């Protein structure tokens, strides 16, 4: 069970500004752990975001997005109280969605 994302979404003028921190190891498959064993590749490949069901962003990621990824974007047409839902899927087939109401 993965840890929840920290999502900040707030109306700024006529746009909604979103800042997300995701908890993920983003292993490239080229790192060795403390005991010297190669840690297999394990990273987020797909991120989508929607506001009240309307797509507002989608992204394809490789292993060189930094560990515990940070993502920020802006969109129009969102209002205070609307639901912003963010979903990621990774190479292990795990997926996680978190939802916040826009501040």
């Amino acid at each position, binding site marked *: 069970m993965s840890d929840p994302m920290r999502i900040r979404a707030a109306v700024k003028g006529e746009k909604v500004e979103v800042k997300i921190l995701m*908890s993920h190891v*983003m292993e490239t498959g080229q790192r060795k752990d403390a005991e010297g064993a190669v840690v297999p590749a394990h990273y987020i490949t797909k991120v989508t975001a929607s506001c009240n069901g309307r797509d507002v962003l989608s992204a394809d990621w490789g292993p060189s997005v930094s560990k515990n990824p940070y993502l920020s974007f802006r969109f129009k047409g969102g209002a205070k109280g609307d639901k912003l839902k963010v979903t990621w899927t990774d190479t292990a087939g795990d997926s996680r969605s978190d939802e916040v109401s826009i501040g």
Partner: protein
Amino acid sequence: MNTPRATRRALLVGSLLLLAGAAQAETSTQDAIAEYREMFGDDNPAELWQSRGEALWHTARGPKQANLTACDLGLGPGVIEGAYAQLPRWFDDTQQVQDLETRLVSCVTTLQGIPREEFLKVKFGDGEKKSELEALTAYVVAASRGKPIALPMQHPAEQAAYALGKAAFSYRAGPHDFACATCHGDAGKRIRLQELPQLTTAAGAREAYTHWPAYRISQGELRTMEWRLQDCFRQQRLPQLKFGSEVAIGLTMFLAKNAEGGTLAAPGIKR
């Protein structure tokens, strides 16, 4: 054959001319690094550890099926706000001077009945292997953000811990004759591009101590003071510092006392 003193004077003049040129390149490097740090804003992944720690604090676990809301960090059971700003300190129930991390271990073992070895199996996280100690530490430390460090320092054992920390700080040993003081004893020094705070002064100690524990970008992990000291001794080529040992707590006491009055801003974000 000119005397060594004359040769040295000639060298000094020669190198001073070069320093002027180097100094100018140096400031543009430090400015660029400051710019890099600035770009992280206040989006610190340490917050992910804080929320995991908050969940752990409030979840009933262990043989006693208890959470940690009765844990006394020195300001009374369950009080976390400002607790970190007054640690390390003496605790009557354990008859020891404890830092935050050893105190959390005491709470986990006594309140929840979880054996010490089990709780500390993953002391320092590594990717998938997550550390509960680091998460709980992040949660408690964040509740002292903005608070001035103010150590009780009444009990003789607290003063002895300070004295031991001060002595250990300059204990030179190992193949390289290193002590903490070798790198942290003078102002304005750096290793490579890594600036070194002078930890024996209030200004230097505050600059460093108030930002620990911190999220380490290079590892993608939140690291605590116990890890910081243990990893420093590893780089000093010394054997391994034991978790919660006299020297670990003594050094933390020495640094915290030197940093007294400084405003806590942890968890920080570091290289």
